[in-house]
């Protein structure tokens, strides 16, 4: 029990844990939509393309998270512009935007001579979260969950059958753009926890695991949030005791959660096979 309570006797640990919980919930909820729409590559790419925004914000002395947000929105608009007209496939457009933006970020980073200032952006710094950041993360999580709840039907029908949705006046491209704009602050929150390089760990991995063990989208979102939440709590506690990077530990715990989901799915499939064999006999 002391293993659990001792880290929480420190204020920064309590704040960090709460931040990790908020981030994991919003990332998993949006991640479920991202995985369902086969946009996982975009989610990962978007996290990387935020780098130039962060560097510019640093050089201007502005909010790094604000810079990341602007870069994410710019990336989304660049991808939309490249794919407009249908001549370039979206995965190719993502590859172009991803490479261009990340290369620009690394190039700008090399001019600052202060790589150390950016390590928390690259690898996360959940234990360095202040009260102000916590409020921002809380607002992002609230807005994300509320938006997904309010537009649940529109998100689902445009994902299942965009042609049908268009036939009754919904614009699937705009709904998708809305989801991408929601994804941007979510990834910014994810960067706070696990950094640019490991955001996929909270965005994609829990949702990918949840899809293996669920048959209804609402349950998928719930299980994804639980996996992300478990990974965050376990990651923060394990990293404290082992003295290792918190962001990396959270991402690794999410992968363990994915593995557990795979195991459950395989077990369920084996049981179903045995049952059907017994019925046939």
């Amino acid at each position, binding site marked *: 029990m002391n293993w659990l309570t001792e880290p929480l006797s420190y204020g920064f640990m309590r704040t960090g844990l709460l931040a990790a919980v908020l981030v994991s919930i919003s990332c998993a909820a949006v991640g479920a939509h991202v995985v369902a729409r086969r946009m996982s590559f975009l989610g990962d790419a978007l996290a990387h393309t935020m780098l130039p925004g962060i560097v510019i914000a640093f050089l201007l002395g502005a909010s790094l998270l604000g810079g990341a947000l602007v870069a994410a929105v710019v990336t989304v608009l660049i991808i939309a512009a490249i794919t407009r007209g249908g001549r370039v496939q979206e995965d190719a457009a993502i590859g172009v935007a991803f490479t261009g933006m990340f290369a620009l970020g690394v190039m700008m980073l090399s001019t600052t001579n202060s790589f150390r200032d950016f390590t928390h952006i690259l690898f996360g710094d959940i234990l360095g979260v202040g009260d102000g950041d916590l409020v921002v993360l809380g607002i992002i999580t609230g807005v994300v969950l509320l938006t997904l709840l309010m537009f649940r039907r529109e998100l*689902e029908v445009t994902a299942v*059958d965009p042609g049908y949705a268009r036939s009754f006046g919904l614009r699937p491209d705009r709904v998708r753009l809305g989801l991408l704009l929601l994804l941007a602050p979510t990834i910014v929150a994810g960067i706070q926890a696990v950094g640019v390089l490991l955001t996929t760990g909270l965005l994609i991995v829990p949702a990918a695991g949840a899809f293996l063990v669920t048959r209804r989208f609402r349950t998928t979102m719930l299980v994804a949030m639980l996996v992300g939440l478990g990974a965050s709590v376990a990651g923060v506690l394990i990293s404290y005791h082992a003295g290792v990077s918190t962001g990396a530990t959270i991402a690794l715990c999410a992968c363990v959660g994915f593995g557990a989901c795979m195991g459950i799915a395989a077990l369920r499939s084996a049981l179903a096979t045995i049952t059907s064999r017994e019925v046939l006999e």
Partner: protein
Amino acid sequence: MTAHPPHGPRFPYGGRGHRDPVPGAPALVVHDLMVRYPGGITAVRSFSVRLERGQCGVLVGPNGCGKSSVLKAIAGIARPAAGEVRVFGNAVGACHHRTAYLPQVPEVAWAFPISVREMVMQGRDVHMGWLGRPRHADERAVDDALRRTGLEALATRSVDALSGGQRQRALLARALAQESELLLLDEPLTALDEDHRQAITRVINEALAQDAAVLMTTHHVDEARSAGHVIIPMRDGAIADGNALVAR
């Protein structure tokens, strides 16, 4: 078809509300329609058709002759490069709830984790609009559509666990749940065995008897002809020969 409430959703999609049909207007009038896709490919050229309430037009022809593109243009999915489409006297999109579109099975993301009932409920989305929630009338319409298509027993099953024929029926149930007056059905009889083809044909005939109009594509020409439907042969994006009943 069920009478529509005098007021549509509070926040309708596309910003268009429930608009009444123009008195005396045919269910569908298409005049000199041309559909062109990116890259300059012309899928439909100079296509005209006219359907009255209670009438079923059946587009037939080889693959790639433009049948699906005609339906997509009328449904508002493909934008016409030229020509005019009027649905109950109104422009396309003036009243979305009056037109229900059934896509071909491969165009749907069946891996998305929803039940058959949830998919059929999507047919009610146009009546709910932004921020709307299903009401008793929506639940009743879904129950009715599931019953008519023989899917009641599969209502809670995931759509990715359905066979090809069951998927076809689920899409038809969704179109029926919309309670529209113009049904645009792209290959509704594909992947169905004979019993289910007859059942679906019966459902289509019921809709026609309730004064709806139907425009559909099919490869089962003989069944469509024996059901008394109007055959509209297509070739290279246009009507292959003049049809006095529907093409004006």
